[in-house]
């Protein structure tokens, strides 16, 4: 006897179940083994320094939910680090030897056992309506059980931390792999683009000569015109790829983001009007400058606006907000173009990913690269069925009081 319960407790505390379920099993086992009416297990909150009721088992379940570390019988147990055993003929009152604890009131036998090794994890609180003599052997057994419980809780916390850390690492790795993939893709694409560009240029150039020489001969001009058009499209694509991988040649100066956005918006003025898109500006004036390559950054807003316009072909609202937040200049650009399908969400920043018939799929890839090169962050808030908000955070220039690295 006795070792039964211990091996059972070990079994419970080592199981894969959620901690709460394991504690419940232990509490239930303690009740049946010691023939008590109630058993509660409290866990110690290391930050708030309080005991919080985790599980209760047994008949009347009305223990106090929370104990301060100097409160009641559990408080006494954890303060002294020793178990409190009370056994008496009459019922225990609200106050026992100057210690107020309503949870003990009405019982004849109460055990409060700290659950700890070097660190305090909690307390066991067992109560019985009958007067029970706890033999030294049982006391020892209880001490071993409490220690086993402490180990179980400790292990559990370790695993939770490990899982958290592991998850964080996996997330980070996934992001790294993604960034690397982008980079590799970009480099490969750039090499390809350079190789393709030259022959493309002579195809296009000679076709244009052919076009001139054929004149308006209707039997050929349609073909030749098609070739010229397609070559121009390909040249535009190659241009985009070269830009995408173009990491050098950034010319930084102190810029006002509102000004850059305004210039980009002006570029699309006709498109906004043509598609019935209202542009709402909510720009904070006189914000600190950012350190930016004006042309590159304009490309960012060009790309985002182009996407918004394409998403709102039947009209809508484009809201542009800028604000100063700590060391960041934050721009939010929201459209009402219906949002992005969750299924494709993870692809939108990949080069060549497009859902459009004539898209290159480079718009957002270039945008991402440029923002990153500016030590900035780009985020997407997708509101499925409504629209998309692109959030761009760029660091305040150092001369302007920014203190980013």
């Amino acid at each position, binding site marked *: 006897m006795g070792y039964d319960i211990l091996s059972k407790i070990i079994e419970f505390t080592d199981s894969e179940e959620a901690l709460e379920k394991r504690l419940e099993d232990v509490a239930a086992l303690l009740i049946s083994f010691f023939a008590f009416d109630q058993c509660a297990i409290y866990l110690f909150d290391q930050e708030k320094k309080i005991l919080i009721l985790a599980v209760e088992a047994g008949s009347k379940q009305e223990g106090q939910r929370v104990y301060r570390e100097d409160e009641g019988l559990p408080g006494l147990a954890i303060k002294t680090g020793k178990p409190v055993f009370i056994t008496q003929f009459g019922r225990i009152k609200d106050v026992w030897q100057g210690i107020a604890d309503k949870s003990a009131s009405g019982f004849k036998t109460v055990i409060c056992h700290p659950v700890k090794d070097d660190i305090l994890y909690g307390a066991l609180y067992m109560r019985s309506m009958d007067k029970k003599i706890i033999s030294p052997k049982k006391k020892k057994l209880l001490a071993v059980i409490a220690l086993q419980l402490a180990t179980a809780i400790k292990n559990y916390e370790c695993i939770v931390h490990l899982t958290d850390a592991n998850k964080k690492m996996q997330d980070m790795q996934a992001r790294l792999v993604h960034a690397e993939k982008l980079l590799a893709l970009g480099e490969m694409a750039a090499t390809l*683009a*350079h190789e393709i*560009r*030259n*022959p*493309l*240029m*002579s*195809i*296009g*150039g*000679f*076709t*244009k*000569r052919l076009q001139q020489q054929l004149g308006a001969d209707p039997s050929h001009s349609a073909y030749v015109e098609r070739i010229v058009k397609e*070559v*121009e499209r390909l*040249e535009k694509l*190659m*241009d985009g790829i*070269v*830009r995408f991988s*173009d990491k*050098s*040649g950034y*010319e930084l100066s102190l810029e006002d983001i509102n000004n850059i956005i305004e210039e980009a918006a002006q570029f699309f003025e006709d498109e906004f009007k043509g598609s019935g898109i209202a542009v709402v500006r909510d720009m904070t004036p006189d914000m600190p400058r950012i350190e930016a390559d004006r042309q590159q950054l304009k490309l960012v807003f060009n790309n985002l606006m182009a996407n918004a316009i394409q998403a709102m072909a039947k009209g809508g609202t484009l809201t542009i907000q800028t604000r100063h937040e700590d060391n960041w200049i934050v721009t939010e650009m929201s459209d009402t173009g219906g949002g992005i399908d969750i299924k494709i969400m993870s692809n939108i920043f990949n080069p060549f990913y497009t859902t459009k018939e004539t898209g290159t799929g480079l718009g957002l890839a270039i945008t991402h690269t440029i923002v990153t090169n500016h030590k900035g962050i780009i985020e997407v808030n997708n509101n499925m069925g409504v629209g998309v908000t692109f959030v761009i955070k760029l660091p305040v220039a150092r001369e302007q009081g920014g203190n980013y690295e």
Partner: protein
Amino acid sequence: MNEKILVVDDEEGIRLLYKEELMDEGLDVHLAASGEEALAKLEKDKFDLIVLDIKMPGMDGIEVLRRVKERWKNLPVILSTAYHHYKQEFGTWASDAYVVKSSDLKELKTTIKDILNTGRK
């Protein structure tokens, strides 16, 4: 007399295209397939302008440009390449103009004309 221009590009198709198009503009067009060949031709002949590709195997356009400007300080050079950013990097020195390569040669032609016209005055 027609202005004499030297086109330096490692791609044959592009050399031929430039030749035909620029001849149509009434220019006397000569070709070089590499930086080395270009420098050799410049030693022998007198040119009014060079159109120079930047990305070439062997001696690249930037190196050719440097040597040209050392020896023939007043010979105008137009750099042409696929890279946009060279425009910024080399804008401050040496080359007289910069053109992004494209099957549409309008930009190149107007740039050549502008430079030759200023030279004539």
